[in-house]
């Protein structure tokens, strides 16, 4: 709540603070559940419909429960050429992880991204907030094994 108050100071009106507030709620609740959206609406004194409308417009919010770690892997042109699709297949083979899905043990969730701005070092991914590039079949799992 204190954090939201701090954010509110930075915007001319309450609606401006909605995107960062949704990130806070997502962090606190794990995903944007009805409860989380309602909490955001209450915190900003906005109608729940406004909050839900904004939340469903942006691709980077989670609208279903996610695993402990979120893998955001790019398969856009540059990454695709450099073998990103093979990495997707490997994730499925190793962890049973489908794009948009979550592993059975709740460890990883996978979201396919449309370009994360790292074409020069393709293929690239984000794990939670960490950036990893120049991926290949070996280092992919070396990296992921650091996330339990």
């Amino acid at each position, binding site marked *: 709540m204190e954090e939201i108050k701090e954010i509110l100071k930075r915007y001319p009106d309450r609606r401006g603070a909605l995107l960062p507030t949704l990130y806070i709620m997502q962090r606190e609740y794990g995903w944007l559940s009805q409860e989380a959206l309602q909490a955001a609406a209450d915190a900003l004194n*906005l109608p*729940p419909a406004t909050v839900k409308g904004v939340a469903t417009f942006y691709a980077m919010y989670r609208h279903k429960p996610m695993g402990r770690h979120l893998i955001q892997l790019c398969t856009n042109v540059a990454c695709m050429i450099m073998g990103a699709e093979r990495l997707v297949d490997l994730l499925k083979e190793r962890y049973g992880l489908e794009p948009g899905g979550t592993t059975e043990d709740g460890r990883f969730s996978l979201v396919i991204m449309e370009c994360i701005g790292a074409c020069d070092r393709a293929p690239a991914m984000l794990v939670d907030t960490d950036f990893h590039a120049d991926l290949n079949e070996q280092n992919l799992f070396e990296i992921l094994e650091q996330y339990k």
Partner: protein
Amino acid sequence: MIELTIDGKRIEAEKGMTILEVAKANNIYIPHLCWDRRLKPYGGCRLCLVEVEGQRKLMAACSTPADNGMVIHTDTPNLQKARRTVLELLLVHHPLDCPVCDKAGECRLQDLAYKYGPSESRFYAERKHDPEATSALIERNPNRCILCGRCVRVCWEHQGVGAINFIGRGFKTKISPAFEETLDCEFCGQCVDACPVGALGAKPYKYRARAWFLESHDSICPYCSVGCTLTLDLREGRILRVRGVDGKGVNDGDLCGKGRFGFDFIYGDTRLKTPLVRKAGELVESTWEETLYYVANRLRDIKRQYGADSIGAIGSARAGIEDNYMLKKFMKEVIGSDNIDTSARLGYAWVLRALNDTYGINQNPIKLDSPIGKEVVLVLESDLTSTHPIFGLKFLEAKNEGTYLMVADPRKTKLARRSSKWIRIKPASGTVFLLGLINYAIREGAHLREEKEIEGIDGLIESVKPYTPEKVSELIGVDTEQFIEAASRFVNAETRLIALTVGAAENQKGYETVLAAANLLMLLGEGPDSLQVPSDYSNTLGAWLSGTRPTEGGKDLYEMLYNPGSLKALYVMGEDPLVTMPDGNTVKKTLEELEFLVVQDIRLSETAKLADVVLPAAAWSEKEGTFINSQGIPQPFPKVVSPQGDSVPDWQILRNLARVMEHDLGITELGKLREELSRIQTDRGQQRWRFSPVEVPSVAQTTTDYPIIMVTGNIMQHSGALSVMSKSLSHVLSDAFVQISPEDAERFGVKDGEFIKISSPLGEVFIKARVSDEIPEGMLFVPVHFAHARVNYLVSHSRLGNAHPTPVKIESTSTATPRR
């Protein structure tokens, strides 16, 4: 001023107008779907594209400002092609189910497709097959939606609600409440009027008529005193729906739920169809002839035996001025009595008295636009968006345009939620809040700034001495700092306004509140235009102005209803004192002690059930009439349907009764009556300012026995005791309830939805509890509309016109001993 050319026509326009606005003002047609005069430009539908010379691409007329020297073409082959393509793209998803769509014939998309050609799209995509979503009054058909967003924007920007929004993105976008739940909003229906296609519709109108068979008449709304123009759509002599039409009436197209859906009270099950006479204790059906002779004989007998002064009459704040004037004339000329009054006595009469005691004026018509452009607006303990919805909208509009909207109210009303500053004062402490502002203004030397010397300043200074910021903030229950900040902002503003309501249904404000507000404003050099107190109902002001009150020393409402035995006979026209007036027990006692009670009404009201004779009156729309709204504008409304059963317009019943009593009132038809009424004065008279201190404001006193304050009032979907006759409005809400704070619910062991017993020294009632954070600890809020709740039996009345907040005790009915 700027000058531009549209379609070869040289046009002058104000700077800042958009191309579309300029074109509209000059009767040049540019098609559009998503544009709405009341909303910010959106540029979503791309149909208003125009060519501007020198611009490479087509410009959206709704969001492009008109500029000096612009040369604009609105209808070129190129534009026609562009518009045709836009329509084709809209038709990719829009189903062509016009044969079963209620909108067909008045559908903007249908009209534009007709004009520009494409009946089908060259493109193909899977059509949506979402189920229709229904709710109490509004039907949503998501498949027909073209996502223009007018409903979303009117709901949020204009109404300040935000019940619906675009959910999702791209092809998957749909309009929905947040969690796809059933729509549960104010049901103002503004979205229905805004929808250009058949995606939103009024449920009561569904499958009722094809648009081209409807016959339309304009009328005036019978509910509150704003006096909105309603466009009634009829088929085969029956009103099927009501619309607001842009540009029409004081409301300029806006309507609230009562106006839009509440018209069907005239088709209510409880309508009276024949006269009723009490025989052997039962009310039995009778003929007009027999009944009128009976009434005439009884009135004559009572007059002979006890004198004319033993007979009284109560007029109606909902009947036309013609009806009320005729009642006055009947009482004066046939009976010879000045005992006549209306419900205005309990509320609006005190407003007028307070204005007279301060500004020296006889009346103070409000101005709907008054909040717009003010620096600070203070709304005091008044739920204006519920009681006077279209006036209430102006406060939201003012706020959107930069006004500092200050709301002092214990209830979290819509205005409180949308305010710049919400000061959650204790219930019924509004007067003290104002006295605190006066005290603060004097400390700041505000009274020295004005050159004009106003009579009574010393008395005022003396009277507010005890109301220091410290004391006041304690009494109203807010931080001293918060109070001082608000006071400073209000007192030091360049322009300001105070708005509140004082009505028969409300017990937390009164004479003293208006007095305090007027004193404060005079002290700051503000005239009566800065004090906006609207009258309650459609014709509260009209009944007052047409003389439906004692004018020659007769008995007023207090004397007639709260002094058992003061009358022998009472003639009640279109009023239900047993439900709408405080201290129901005393009213009931008074009525029961009468020798003869006549009730003339459109339905068998609670009061009518006690009557000796009940006369069926024609309702609004079944007769012509005139309401005077709170702006002082007399607005005639037409007869559009035939009266139910044998009911007759009120004024005609009185004319006929006078004839039976062998008196010619000189009025045989409405024209003659209106001629006499044209002499009504609606100006406010010469101002003569003087301060009139509030002696001792009523403060809500709780005791150990009665620890909680009950406040009564109107809610959004209802108005007085009339709206409960409307089936549509009852679909939204038909059950009495009391709002209680979560804290008190915990304290008294009350569960949401259970019946609780509320008692005051005057009586006890059982009502369903609704736990809600809209009200603070220590307060109950009860709507007054529902006869079966008998809330008015708990409330006391005050002959001094003071607020009479009611301390009560509550007990849960499920737990034997409430937790303390």
